[in-house]
């Protein structure tokens, strides 16, 4: 009888620990640390923009949802109510400048605002895809 209680107790404890681990690491798992993640691809900003513009489907498959780093001349940094965005501009259209828009991580906004644009730079971030006519990168960081 005592042994049976012991076994039930162990099973209950294991169940509780398993439940906690599932909650903590699956249900409640944190977002990736975008600053520390390694870039899957590193390429010139203009090449990325042209790939999305000319072969949107294949570029989506290749880059969307992945951490990538782009290099090139950052034309300007713009600020909205809540975001700081680095802009690589390659053409102009109905929506104004067209290119790559890199939304900075909060800890990089001050540094981005201080950039003396245009400037050559390497920016890393999560590629969210192509919101025609712009490639969108988010959670961006850089070293300069």
């Amino acid at each position, binding site marked *: 009888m005592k042994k049976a209680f012991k076994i039930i107790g162990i099973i209950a404890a294991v169940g509780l620990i398993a439940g906690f681990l599932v909650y903590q690491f*699956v*249900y*409640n*798992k*944190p*977002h*990736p640390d975008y600053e520390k993640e390694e870039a899957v691809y590193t390429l010139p900003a203009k090449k990325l923009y042209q790939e999305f513009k000319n072969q949107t489907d294949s570029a*989506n*498959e290749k880059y*969307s*949802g992945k951490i990538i780093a782009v290099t090139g001349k950052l034309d300007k940094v713009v600020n*909205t*109510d*809540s*975001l700081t*965005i680095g802009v690589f501009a390659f053409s102009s259209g*109905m*929506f*104004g400048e067209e290119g790559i*828009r890199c*939304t900075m991580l909060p800890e990089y906004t001050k540094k981005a605002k201080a950039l003396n644009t245009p400037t050559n730079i390497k920016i890393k971030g999560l590629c*969210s*895809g*192509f*919101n*025609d006519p*712009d490639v*969108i990168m*988010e959670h961006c960081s850089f070293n300069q």
Partner: protein
Amino acid sequence: MKKTLNILAIFLLIASSVSAQRYITKNGYIRFFSSTPVEDIKAHNRQVQAALDSESGELVFKVLMKSFSFKKALMQEHFNEKFIESHKYPNSNFKGKIVNLDEINFKKDGEYPAKVEGKLTIHGVTQAIEEEGTITVKNDTAHAESQFRITVADYDIEIPSTVRKNIAKEVEVTVDCKLKKRKQ
């Protein structure tokens, strides 16, 4: 006579293109909100493109689905991979028109009720919608705001049975876009 008419036509064309005034933003805000007894889920997108032609009333919104951010990483994964299938349908959009354009004076600051009709495409499915909102004109900005509900099933979005109790059948959509007058 024919030459005069041609000149007049060209003049009118130039005059209409000069008077056409476009308001744009690349950082509009859209929020999804789902509420059930099990949990409330919010998703925010601050990368919305919007364009409004104040002469014709034409209105366009373009949304990248992967730009929606959730508090829980797992919910964001489920949203992209299982519900909205953003690898297959990366964008959503709305194309429509303000139908009470004559009640909105873009040359005078003020808050105006706006009625909008058009086609909303989500998850590759297009539905006709009619919604109401406001447009607040201030200086060179047209601030478009609206809140409405969409039925998830109308857009062929299947919710797996394991999380069916967590996600509402109707989701509240909030639109908040500050469009700036584009210099011609």
